């Protein structure tokens, strides 16, 4: 079956993408992903904050010791024309571009207006075919309103879209009060696509040491549900391309995501667990499933169960909540049936 997909203006061989992960650091893995059928690659994010922190740490911990002592002007070598900051990331874009023939979508998490636009331009110059803006922001200030948060986000998208000529997608968190409205604003501001959703790192607590423990768990299939709901809602009302990200582990998951309205489907955790070769299995299943279920085209599948097309739109809306609650019989799941 012809799985060709247009995403952010890029023509892709199929709608399945390896999502933002450390796999792209390894050129061998990148080649294996291409061999396995990946139509494009999404790089993990460049974090402006990390660069800033690293610069500050170098200033405090390395530079501050220089020229302090007669016997040692410095304490570390200064060989190599390396630079701190984004260069390694930018170099990697170039290396991947040289290693494979598929488009590369760079990903950026900025913290300052200058950082967002500056790094976006550098990524474009480095050869990125598209840019994913990874909006990872946790509001902790009670004085900040949801409108402030949304306005800042829209502004970032507008600035970045204006600063680069490559297509821009915005990767969002699910924690917005009125996502359809925000999605519209983002599209109007220049976002050609929306990626649903980024996964907040959820720290754990260590009760013995009285510490917060940074942890990162890979996604599980349950997380797909949230994506399916919002893909279904947004695909019905927003012209932007939608990409599902989080919880897609199998070919069937991918089928569901496209049915809900996803233009593309991103996979990370499954690839990290099972290796780049797993991509081919998922793609194969996806293809087979469509053929076995006698779909004529991918377009026929896409959005076929979204809010405007599904037989029971209430299932995606509040009514479903009531229905599910009423069907609850109070017995433990394991005791059923």
């Amino acid at each position: 079956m012809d799985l060709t997909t247009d995403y952010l203006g890029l023509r892709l061989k199929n709608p399945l993408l390896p999502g933002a992960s450390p796999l792209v650091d390894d050129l061998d893995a990148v080649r294996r992903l291409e061999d396995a059928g990946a139509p494009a690659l999404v790089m993990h994010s460049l974090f402006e904050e990390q660069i800033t922190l690293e610069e500050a740490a170098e200033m405090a911990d390395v530079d501050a010791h220089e020229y302090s002592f007669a016997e040692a002007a410095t304490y570390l070598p200064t060989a190599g024309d390396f630079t701190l900051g984004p260069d390694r990331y930018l170099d990697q874009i170039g290396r991947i571009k040289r290693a494979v023939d598929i488009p590369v979508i760079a990903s950026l998490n900025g913290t300052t207006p200058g950082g967002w636009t500056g790094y976006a331009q550098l990524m474009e110059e480095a050869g990125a075919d598209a840019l994913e803006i990874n909006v990872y922001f946790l509001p902790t200030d009670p004085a900040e309103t949801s409108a402030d948060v949304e306005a800042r986000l829209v502004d970032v998208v507008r600035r970045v879209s204006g600063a680069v000529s490559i297509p821009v997608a915005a990767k969002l968190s699910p924690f917005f009060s009125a996502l359809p409205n925000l999605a519209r604003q983002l599209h109007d501001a220049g976002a050609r696509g929306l990626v649903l959703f980024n996964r907040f790192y959820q720290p754990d607590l260590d009760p013995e040491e009285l510490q917060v423990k940074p942890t990162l768990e890979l996604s599980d299939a349950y997380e797909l549900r949230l994506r399916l709901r919002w893909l279904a809602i947004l695909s019905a009302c927003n012209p932007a391309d939608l990409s599902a990200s989080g919880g897609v582990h199998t070919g069937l998951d991918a089928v569901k995501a496209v049915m809900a309205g996803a233009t593309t489907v991103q996979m990370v955790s499954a690839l990290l667990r099972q290796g780049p070769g797993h991509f081919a299995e998922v793609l194969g299943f996806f293809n087979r499933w469509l053929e076995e279920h006698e779909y004529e085209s991918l377009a026929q599948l896409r959005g076929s169960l979204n809010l405007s097309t599904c037989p029971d739109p209430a299932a995606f809306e509040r009514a479903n909540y009531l229905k599910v609650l009423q069907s609850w019989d109070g017995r433990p799941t394991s005791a059923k049936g």
Partner: protein
Amino acid sequence: MIPRPRRVTVDGNEATAAVAYALAETIAIYPITPSSPMAESCDEWSAKGRKNLWGTVPRIMEMQSEAGAAGAVHGMLQAGSLSTTFTASQGLLLMIPNLYKIAGELHPFVIHVAARTLATHALSIFGDHSDVMACRQIGLAMLCSATVQEAQDMAAIAHAATLRSRIPFMHFFDGFRTSHEVGKIGPLGDDVLRALVREEDVAAFRSRALTPDAPVIRGTAQNPDTFFQAREACNPFYAAVPGVVDDLFAEFAALTGRVYRPFEYEGDPAAEQVIVIMGSGAEAVAECSARLNNEGAKTGVLKVRLFRPWSVAAFAGALPDTVRSIAVLDRTKEPGAVGEPLYQDVVTALAEARCCGLLPRSCDPVVVGGRYGLSSKEFTPAMARGVFEELRSEVPRNHFTVGIVDDVSGASLPWDRSWDIEPDDVTRAVFFGLGSDGTVGANKNTIKIIGEETDNFAQGYFVYDSKKAGAVTISHLRFGPRPIRSTYLVGRANFVGVHQWEFFDRMDVLDVAAPGAVVLVNSVHGPETVWAALPREAQEMIVARKLKLFTIDAYRVARESGMGGRINTIMQTCFFAISGVLPREEAIAQIKKAIEKTYARKGSGVVQKNFAAVDATLAALHEVVVPEVADSPRRRPPVVPGEAPDLVRRVTALMLAGQGDMLPVSAFPVDGSWPLGTTKWEKRNLAQEIPVWDAGLCIQCNKCVLVCPHAAVRAKFYDKSGLSAAPETFKAVDFRSATAKGMSYTIQIAPEDCTGCTLCVQVCPAKDKANPRHKALDMAPQLPLRDAERANYEFFLGLPEPDRQTMKAEVKATQFFRPLIEYSGACAGCGETPYLKLLTQMFGDRLLIANATGCSSIYGGNLPTTPYTTGGDGRGPAWSNSLFEDNAEYGLGMRIALDKHHEQACELLRGMGADLGDDLVTALIGGYAGDGASIVAQRERVIALREKLQGRTDEAARRLALLADYLVKKSVWIVGGDGWAYDIGFGGLDHVLWSGCDVNILVMDTEVYSNTGGQSSKATPLGASAKFAVSGKELPKKDLALYAMMNGTAYVARVAFGAKDSQTVQAFAEAEDFPGVSLVVAYSHCIAHGYGMHHGLEQQKLAVESAYWPLFRFNPRRTAPGDEPLKLDSGAAKVPLSKYLANEMRYRILERSDPDHAKMLQEAAQRHVTGHFAEYERLRDAMRVPPEPSTN
């Protein structure tokens, strides 16, 4: 190669290294101050692929010592490779045997020496000619440079001359004064080097290479029948050298326009008084002579460039025959000689010249010799004038000194300190800064801007104090329309930058200001209040000298621009804005250009922040309206308190105030012996924040005390009654102890000695359950706490100390004992000093320390103040540093002496047995043991013995009285870093390991040569970048502990106090207890690892948890059935190695510059670590003593 610009701004080391690198194929290197930067430059250029004159990248080889470098170079030359090396001081001495060989075999070769003082009564890293003069007899040609320009030019001449003459050359220049002076010079293009270095000479050298294709034998042994004649066979080659050099000088002049001579005279052609001098001091003499001649005198200076071979003809030809008196100035001292070497040569050469008719018989000048400038002592035109004046006297004094006041031998000449001849069109600026504020770096930038972007000439020289934390830097800058020849510090500045407000209270920073000078002050005080905040002395100086005062709150500007504590760019902008060296707008554009160049590699954020700082500076800079009279009621506080001992008040205080030059000879001990415990008189108040103790939350583990690198956190338990006189804010809590009931407990901070490193807070395990951010120690601003905590600390020190007999080898117990190393100049957060502190707490009252040169000898023994101190009983560590390479042997020698003293005391005791009482004798002989309780008991017996010896006059009694204290066992610890133990001192360490003697060796392993700036040692780990291993160390670190364990008879431990402090304490106790050699290898985090030292303990943990640094204790005497001689105190990896490596810049550098190579090395490192730990486990299992067979 890329064409070089017409003018460059470099220091003498870089100028020299650039030539050496271009003309060498193989370079053997080893770090030693002040020559290390030459080797570092070559290594970096090689790593970057820079090519030499022949289009190949020279091969650089770091060796284990200078002796090793000399040996390697000898081999390189023997096999026909153009080779060079760099060294100084003791390093040069270590090369001497090979230099004899190289000279004897007529190998063309150049060694570049940044001439440095040899250690005698003390080590000194600074410059004089004592090292090169110790080589004058070897048979090397010796060519001396006096300036940065000359350092480059003579380097080229030396390389060309050695190839033409076959005589190896030593090219040398004054350490620091020339090696580290930044100047604007005309660089040498490759065309010049090609013209000087003839290919036929290179080909001839190649043809002599030792090769099996055309074999000869070299290095034979010869007998009395032939050695002498064969030795004389080289004479024609030496005779030709002056001519070769002269020819090259002529060719060089034609190529560059710069004219040099083997002996170069400058002054009145009919001079009557002449100073003969070699090195940078010649420039000061030349300036002086020119001024005196302008005033009608007839003086001149004869500069010696080609010191060996000495050409009598060239010397005589250069000297005006009108001369009536000559002073020969030597920058070295030869006690007991007729005179210093240059003086002796001049006297001999004059006699020979007159005898041979090279000088007229009428030329019969009086010749006197004098010493100047030892250890970079200032040598100024005023001092030269003092010498010229002496030469005019009827009978000039011989064997004088100049530049000091010698009130013991009366040898010193007087000079007029106020005589200043610097021209007005030279801008002279002096900046007082802290190392950490970036002042020196900014000034180097300023010199580059002015030197390379304007027609002005520029010079920079930088003076540092000897502290590693809170180091004061003084930058001396000159800019002017002519080449700057002033090879001395700025004495009269027309711009003074005081970058730290506190300096006004610590030293007389304005003394250097010329009348009408501009003074720039960094102060929190605004233009309206800054005047009132100045101490009276500073105000008086400002008024008297009509100084213009400007102020800026640079730290505020830095904070607001995101620059943290770096005020460098801000102060630099101020300098340009108010000094008028450049038009303001142009200056700012140039600063920004320089910022971009300097910081681009550090990231655009850093560049932007610096730009923001420049832009914000001018608005924050204010001129202060200076009142007509000084009115401050506040005087500068005394440098040391009034209760300090006499020597501290008379001598140390002057050194601390930057006036050590004023001290006369009589102020000093004659043999380098100094009293202990002087850091306590220097309250440096470095910490902006200090820890504050929450007594209620504290669990009394004493870990904070153990980790404090500066002994600024202390713990005591004491009887509650001791609190009756406590200051109001003194904190105490009930002591939690099963055995010491009813006592109080206190953790006390030394507020003025703390450096604010926060290690104590990091290690503190006691968290407030409701608010875990709050611990039993939290940091709080120092200033509001200072006075109260000072009083509390004083009170705390007076509280009673525990009885040594009660000490257990446990963390908590050891930390109640007074540290006998305190408030050292080590870096904030130092990873070494906690080990030394522990050592002194456990054994300090009976401890001899042999300390290898390195960081620990600098923070342990660099004047003005030293940290080792005594306990309440007056006993304390007896500390000494001999050299770098000999430390193990040095400590072994101490042990042997102590053992012999003890043996003789026992012999005397036995001989006098009946007289003294057999019981006492038996107890004294049997009571020789090293544990705390035995020591205390034995000391009491010695007191009893002394009472019995009192009044006895027989020889045995008198001898025994001298040796009685040796009946109490002393503990010898041989201490040093990895550069010593793994590399230069390894041969000696190996020998000591096999000696079986009762010594303990503590290796504080920072995995690089920390003191000289982080050069790779054999302890540097695989994958780490270090100087001399810029592209990442390719091999794993040497496992010294494993090596020592294979000895099979020594106690060996590997420790990391940040990972498992209890194991460290246990290892120290076992090492001390072990009756043979003990070696403890101690992980020491270090600023050279490239991360904040407050994370040092976490990194130690990760080093252990990743199995990179397995903890173990090996005791060959654990041989009982079921025993484990090798106890692994840490387990297999819990975390991947990458988790440890990722936090340190030394690993990340390579990730950035060459990610693929970094990945490959890190994977190799992980494989090595995994395999290595498994090896340890196998070893443990193999060594395990089988349990006794069951009797059932």
